[in-house]
């Protein structure tokens, strides 16, 4: 299993801060989620981090034990 982590408003949409999913290509993983959540995760302003490292491209495949975080636009300070 792999873990999806949702930050900010994405956690509200997902109904929680994280969710376990089967591994596989990211496209397939997203296709298995609720359509409105998948759509929000595909927003180009949402950055992604795989195992704590930002990644620029989304053609990734999740392996068992991977953690993929979805990071919406930040608002700190």
């Amino acid at each position, binding site marked *: 299993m792999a873990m999806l982590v949702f*930050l900010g408003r994405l956690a509200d949409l997902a109904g929680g801060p994280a969710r376990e999913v089967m591994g596989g290509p990211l496209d397939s993983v997203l296709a298995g989620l609720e359509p409105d959540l998948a759509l929000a995760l595909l927003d180009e302003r949402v950055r992604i981090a795989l195992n704590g490292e930002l990644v620029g491209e989304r053609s990734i495949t999740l392996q068992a034990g991977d953690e993929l*975080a979805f*990071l*919406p636009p*930040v*608002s700190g*300070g």
Partner: protein
Amino acid sequence: MGADVRLLTAPFDPAAELAAFTAAHPQAGGVVSFLGQVRADGAVEVLELQHYAPLTLPGMTALGQAVLGRWALDGVLILHRSGVMAPAEPIVLVAAAARHRRDAFAAADFAMDHLKSESWFWKREKAGGAWRWIEPREADYADLARWG
């Protein structure tokens, strides 16, 4: 000299932190600080900042190094809260110590602009019992763009 960068999950005392920072840099001719606190504007009950551990503190640490590399400083202090805060509670404290004041002003300004727009925090506020996420403002991006 070094950067003191911390991600805090409990309330902190900005006056005590600033006093300690200043005492640690007696050779500095000037110390500039900025304190951000939760606005008490009536309706807001609490503010919550969330962070993502693998990215947030490493990003703040990199910011501290960038500040030190850009100006001639004796030291820089970057403290940022995560968690739930009440109105008037401190959120962020940035301070820069330098031989000359202009470097200290610019360094603190730079650090704040980058904390606002580039650091990995997500902010929401509770008013009337309902939570609302705070979106980044265009002005924050414009502030950041000043630094090129």
